[in-house]
């Protein structure tokens, strides 16, 4: 069953087609890789999926609902959340406060209650417990009272994922989660992404590190110049001549 279905997705900036009519689907529970050379339009696809940009053309269906043109906050509430290539968290706040902010879209309060209470559905303590669980899951429990800016870079990366998990997503979009990591940190991240999949959360990830992509993705989608040039299992992609040409330059064009 597909959780995300994208058809003819396009985004034009003036005369430039950053994404020029892309179709793909992601099935529930999968880990799918989105790869392509620099400037292929991968991050633009993420921005379109999460409501940062409104598509020029095309349709995005998430969890059987047409979310094309929705605002970010509504899409997050629907269960589609992203992280950024450049780690973004609330650096000057403690790790715990980052987590509690992550629950924002799930804490309930009426139209006016928002000014009076942090939450009318659960208590602050119950969210605190939930935050501790997620921090344990990503291995950040020891850092819970540290300021986010004072923890190591790979821990910040995991914090960004933890905050995204706090929004209780059905699907997670990860933008290069292992960029700039050493091999052991990369291994740790691969394990984490695997564990997220085991929780039943679908993952779409942009990645340049081929060991990561080939290692954990069930399916790979390849973009080049804003168009999808290939889709398939890691083995198929590895042998696909168009993909090899896009990355290394083809003989004809050389």
């Amino acid at each position, binding site marked *: 069953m597909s959780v995300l279905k994208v058809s003819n997705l396009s985004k034009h900036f003036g005369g430039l087609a950053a994404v020029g009519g892309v179709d793909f689907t992601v099935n529930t529970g999968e880990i799918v890789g989105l790869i392509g050379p620099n400037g292929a339009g991968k991050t633009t696809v993420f921005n379109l999926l999460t409501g940062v940009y409104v598509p020029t053309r095309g349709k995005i269906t998430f969890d059987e609902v047409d979310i094309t043109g929705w605002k970010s906050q509504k899409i997050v509430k629907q269960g589609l959340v992203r992280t950024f290539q450049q780690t973004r968290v609330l650096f000057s706040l403690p790790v715990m406060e980052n987590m509690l902010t992550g629950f924002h879209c799930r804490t309930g309060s009426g139209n006016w209650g928002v*000014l009076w209470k942090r939450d009318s559905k659960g208590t602050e303590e119950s969210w605190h417990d939930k935050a501790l669980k997620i921090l344990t899951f990503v291995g950040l429990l020891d850092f819970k009272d540290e300021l986010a800016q004072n923890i190591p870079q790979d821990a910040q990366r995991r914090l960004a994922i933890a905050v995204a998990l706090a929004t209780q997503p059905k699907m997670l979009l990860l933008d290069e989660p292992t960029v700039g990591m050493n091999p052991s940190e990369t291994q740790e991240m691969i394990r984490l992404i695997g564990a997220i999949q085991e929780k039943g959360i679908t993952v779409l990830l942009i990645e340049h590190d081929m060991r990561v992509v080939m290692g954990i993705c069930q399916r790979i989608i390849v973009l080049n110049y804003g168009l999808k040039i290939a889709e398939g299992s890691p083995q198929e992609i590895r042998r696909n001549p168009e993909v090899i040409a896009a990355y290394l330059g083809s003989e004809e064009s050389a």
Partner: protein
Amino acid sequence: MRSIKGISVFIIIVALFALPIVVKDSYFLYLAILAGIFVILAQSLNVIVGYTGQMSFCHSAFFGVGAYTSALLTMNLKFSFWVALPCAMIAGLILGLLIGYPSLRLRGPYFAIVTVGCAEVVRSILYNWVNLTGGPMGLPNIPPPDPIALGNFITLSFDTRQSYYYLVLVFALFTQLIIVKVINSKAGRAFVAIREDEGFARSIGIDIMGYKILAFSISAIFAAMAGSLYAHYILFISPVSFTIMESINVILMVIVGGMGTIVGPIFGAILLTALPELMRVLSDYRMVLYGLVLMMVMIFLPGGLVAALKLSGSFLSRAFGRLPKGVSSVGS
């Protein structure tokens, strides 16, 4: 820790209520009332500048619109002050929404510049709509708040400095209470997330525009309330009191005290109201020294007075080892 905070807040409130009984000096009370009004202004500006991180220069516009609305309603339509004050707050809210909707879409310096423009537009209207506002001559003879009767015997009137002090004190405490409540709510957390990283806040499902407008409106409502209290105290208002310099003055109070903290703007407002008066003995050199003090604070205490308090608190607790924890967290 929480109880130490609670007790100290209680002691301070009692002290504030006892102040006019102990100090009879009428000039001192005049300053205390002004300081109270500026505490309301600074704290309301703190919501949008300190917590939400949007540098706004049109606080003077909300202050002015509150003052003029309240004054005109009581003078021309013979409204009671107690009706005019909420009307002034509503006028502040309307102006806040009017300015906020288009301008909050802009970020950083662009938003700041638009608010500079809005402050100037409002000042020009007050200056040039002579039929309504009296133009540069201002509005004289504003009535003081009407007395309220409690039962048959007790009547509270507000025509003396002492009584007006209590009026302003109650409103200032009310403002603190509401703003502390808002900052500790779900909305408060959203404000801080927007200040720290708008893109990130949006990515975790925070409605950026909605919360920015909310913060801006709250700020406008309380600034207008301060305006009404100001008009019915000074009893004369003119556009000179609502120029952009007034906005900058309030911004200084927030920054010198400590942006994004609850106690910071309170300290800042009191200090910057008192400082120019304390330095009166220096006559012409007064403003030079005032400027120097501000520069010193910014260079050595970029976090404002609250940061200094925290620093000295932690220094003391290190020096004495056993100081209760609450002391070092005064500002948090």
